[in-house]
């Protein structure tokens, strides 16, 4: 009875959040198997087989799993899950969708978004937008867990394949759901969830045209672009850029908040960043309470100056 980690990927590349989840799993002191379910995703299985600490890769390759539909993937994980004490997945949008379905099928609850492992059955997780940290003991025979990537180191890759890759048959496709379409933004910028630097903009930007200032600064620094809920609600940027309690939880080396007042829901998504810079013209803005460096100034003057003076 080992640990099953489900891999996050796009059928071509293994996502970093998988590495954080494997690293969390190593604290549970048991054999770690990784499930790669997708379509034409052999490259992903090969990458997973090189993760240090992984002894087996279960590889289910079928068109059924191409779009990661919860109904199909959860059925597969549930069937495999009977052989495991722990099922861990990164707390990405994808597994937030899939994993509770697995838990219910196994008649256990899910421990969502854990940030620390206290004991084999006891975990820490933030509640109330991170304003409190709960320590929760699971009483279930199988622990189904999503892992907050930013709270754990990444597992390393070894030079050669160290895990055996075992093909797993796909289950019949469900007729409950059909994939229609997907619009995924193509961008050369790093993803929010694993960027070293994030520049986020808020309502202070005033318009989506002005938000381009944030994007230009981000490109200059090789940073990801984030936003507050206010900026999303105002239509400046799409919702998947939202950093906060109900958006992405991030913890980069450097987080620069521009024109963001700092509602608790936003702070919940970024206050674990290593260094936080806040730029806001309102010196009373709550964002300054979590900032390492605060600058009270007009962002429309600061951003051009930063662009000029930064490398």
């Amino acid at each position, binding site marked *: 009875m080992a640990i099953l980690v489900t891999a996050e990927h796009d059928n071509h590349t293994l996502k970093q959040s998988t590495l954080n989840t494997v690293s969390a799993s190593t604290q549970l002191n048991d054999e770690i198997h990784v499930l790669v379910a997708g379509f034409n995703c052999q490259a992903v299985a090969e990458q997973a087989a090189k993760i240090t600490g992984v002894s087996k890769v279960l590889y289910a390759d079928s068109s059924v799993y191409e779009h990661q539909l919860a109904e199909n993937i959860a059925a597969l994980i549930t069937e495999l899950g009977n052989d495991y004490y722990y099922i861990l997945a990164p707390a990405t949008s994808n597994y937030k969708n899939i994993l509770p379905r697995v838990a*219910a099928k196994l008649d256990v609850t899910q421990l969502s978004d854990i940030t620390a492992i206290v004991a084999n059955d006891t975990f820490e997780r933030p509640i109330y937008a991170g304003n409190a940290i709960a320590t929760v003991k699971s009483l279930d025979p199988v622990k189904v867990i999503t892992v907050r990537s930013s709270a754990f180191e990444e597992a390393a890759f070894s030079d050669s394949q160290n895990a055996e890759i075992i093909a797993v048959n796909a289950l019949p496709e469900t007729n409950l759901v059909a994939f229609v379409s997907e619009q995924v933004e193509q961008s050369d910028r790093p993803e929010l969830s694993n960027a070293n630097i994030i520049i986020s903009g808020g309502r202070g930007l005033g318009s989506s045209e002005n938000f381009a200032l944030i994007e230009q600064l981000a490109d200059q620094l090789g940073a990801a672009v984030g936003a507050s809920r206010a900026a999303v609600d105002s239509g400046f940027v799409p919702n998947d850029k939202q950093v906060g*309690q109900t958006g992405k939880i991030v913890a980069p080396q450097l987080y620069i908040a521009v024109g963001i007042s700092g509602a608790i829901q936003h702070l919940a998504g970024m206050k674990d960043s290593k260094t936080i810079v806040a730029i806001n013209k309102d010196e009373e803005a709550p964002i300054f309470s979590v900032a390492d460096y605060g600058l009270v100034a007009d962002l429309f003057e600061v951003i051009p100056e930063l662009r000029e003076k930064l490398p």
Partner: protein
Amino acid sequence: MKILVAVKRVIDYNAKVRVKPDNSDVDLANIKMAMNPFCEIAVEEAVRLKESGIATEIVVASIGEKPCQEQIRSALALGADRGIHVETENTSDSLNVAKLLAKIAEREQIDLIILGKQAIDSDNNQTGQMLAALLNCSQGTFASKVCVENEKLLVTREIDGGLQTLSLTLPAVVTTDLRLNEPRYAALPNIMKAKRKPLQVLTPDELGVTLKQHTQLTSVAEPAKREQGVMVNSVDELIEKLKFEAKVI
């Protein structure tokens, strides 16, 4: 189409959360409570489906202690037709809540269940998905658009990096994301009318559900505080700090 909406009573969005001095839990005494914001979006979506002639009846359910009837009444004031309150103290495990909702959905022969994607107290984001699993039906989570076409439910979902559209066979479970709609405020006459709408109170036993304890809350602590930062006076000073003090650029 018959719709079930589940609503949760939680701490008000703007209220400050305090941890109890003995670290046993958060302190909710004398704190303003309200309907979970994502549940408001769920109610609104159901009401819009009824206004557009797609839905015929909206049943609103809440699981919890007696005060959660206030949130049921709020949903009735917004346009739901009748309420079901399942009275229990045991709401800490989402799976129990999902089991109770599944029973209600079966009894009422519901076609579509709409829930918020997450409650702002426990931040779990799991009840809707669990409910879909128990009913063995389709799920459209984190929905930003819902429409009905040829007996199918087309749901556009917020995913990492963009949007995905799925076609769901009914019955289905939908969980709401922020951009699905902007909830209305209840008009005073509707608040008065809501007081006369039917509200049934049930127990888990009456629904044939045995609640189980899946987790135990060991302790609740304040999060680690960040050290007080410094204010800088110029862009030059900021860049110097970032380069030589924080060493992050």
